[in-house]
């Protein structure tokens, strides 16, 4: 029977901690970028301007149908060959994961907005509201209820994909975990700790955020 020994890991708490902070920072950067970019992309898709719609569709289909690891590798190893400019691992991961997350996030926003029937627009207009006001007071509150839980899930997915940055030697949580595991030859303890950190943090986070969203927006 294997004897667990978590004590050897205690001296590395700083390495784990720095890994968590780096994972957290990259996640926030990617999620924030994806949210902003998605609003534009979703607007493109429902604009009824065919060229903009086409750009939106092409973006989503392109980046949703390539594994994120391949996007990351391509940006890290191929962009320098093409342009002569080498991105550091942080920037490469940020760009690749943002493109990937934007493709998914924009679909959530588009679907959320389009799920509100045309009748709501007409009803809003018929009581004398201008289109921006209909959007702000009639469409958006209803769409938000449907979008926010999906956006929270997507945020969790994004945090998970940041582990891919370890493959290009970006020192986030998984990369640091690998280092510790290699030094101590204690893969069972190190990887279990890293895995548990993800599970505990993300479960708590998703529970709190979903609770907050039902409290503030009401149930769908």
């Amino acid at each position, binding site marked *: 029977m294997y004897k667990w020994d978590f004590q050897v890991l205690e001296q590395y708490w700083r390495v784990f901690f720095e890994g968590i902070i780096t994972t957290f920072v990259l996640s926030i950067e990617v999620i924030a970028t994806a949210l902003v970019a998605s609003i534009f992309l979703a607007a493109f898709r429902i604009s009824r301007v065919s060229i903009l719609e086409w750009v939106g569709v092409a973006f989503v289909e392109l980046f949703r149908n390539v594994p994120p690891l391949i996007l990351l590798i*391509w940006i890290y*190893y191929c962009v320098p060959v093409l342009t002569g400019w080498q991105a550091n691992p942080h920037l490469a991961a940020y760009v690749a994961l943002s493109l990937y997350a934007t493709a998914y996030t924009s679909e959530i926003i588009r679907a959320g907005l389009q799920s509100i029937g045309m009748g709501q627009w007409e009803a809003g207009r018929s009581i004398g509201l201008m289109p921006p006001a209909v959007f702000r007071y009639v469409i958006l509150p209803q769409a938000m209820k449907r979008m926010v839980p999906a956006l929270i899930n997507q945020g*969790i997915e994004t945090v*998970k994909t940041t*582990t891919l940055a*370890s493959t290009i030697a970006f020192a986030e949580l998984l990369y640091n975990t690998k280092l510790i595991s290699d030094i101590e030859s204690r*893969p069972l303890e190190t990887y279990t700790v*890293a895995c548990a950190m993800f599970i505990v943090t*993300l*479960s708590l986070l998703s529970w709190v955020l979903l609770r907050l969203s039902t409290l503030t927006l009401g149930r769908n």
Partner: protein
Amino acid sequence: MSYEWNFSAVTSALPILLGGLVVSLQLAIAALAVAAPLGLLLAIVRISRNKLLAGVGTVYVEVFRTAAALILIFWFFYAFPILIGVNITAFWAAVLAIGLQSAAYFSEAFRSGIATVHAGQWDAAASVGLTRRGTLRYVVMPQAIRAIIPVIFLRIVECFKATSLASVIALPEITYQASVISTTTYRPMETYTTLATIYFILLFSLSRIAALMEKR
């Protein structure tokens, strides 16, 4: 933009790349063979009236939904063999990591399918004398599965994407083979562009099938 493309190195290595694709497909199929039945079982367990069973199902889904796939792959490859005292190959470590995680997502898909079946159907089935199990088997599941076929296809797409992660434990699937070709030919541009194109063609086709099913 003065880069001169030269695909000759990649075309001569194409058989290796396609051999990797076969491994990727085998991995995806094996992982799906774990994920789909286990996902169905989890969905049934989660709606059962046995609180303990339902709780176990919920915890399983929560754990595998929040653990990063890449960490799971490392865990099953480096940590799991120590735990059980048996060595497992990179292939089976990846099957377990991707399959068990995918099962959590499959269970959510099945559960949403079951939820689309109107509660009146349960009552109607009970009134003609069907047991709870019979109702699930003959009334609810046939409708539920039909409702979620597009979602199942999207889960297959995600599962296939996840197989690329197995390259980190040196499983010779297509991404790993591409990285080998790239380092031996010094042609990352052509190799990885070919790799991305192969993935795109496969995954885009699957997504289109899912979209068509949704329209029907």
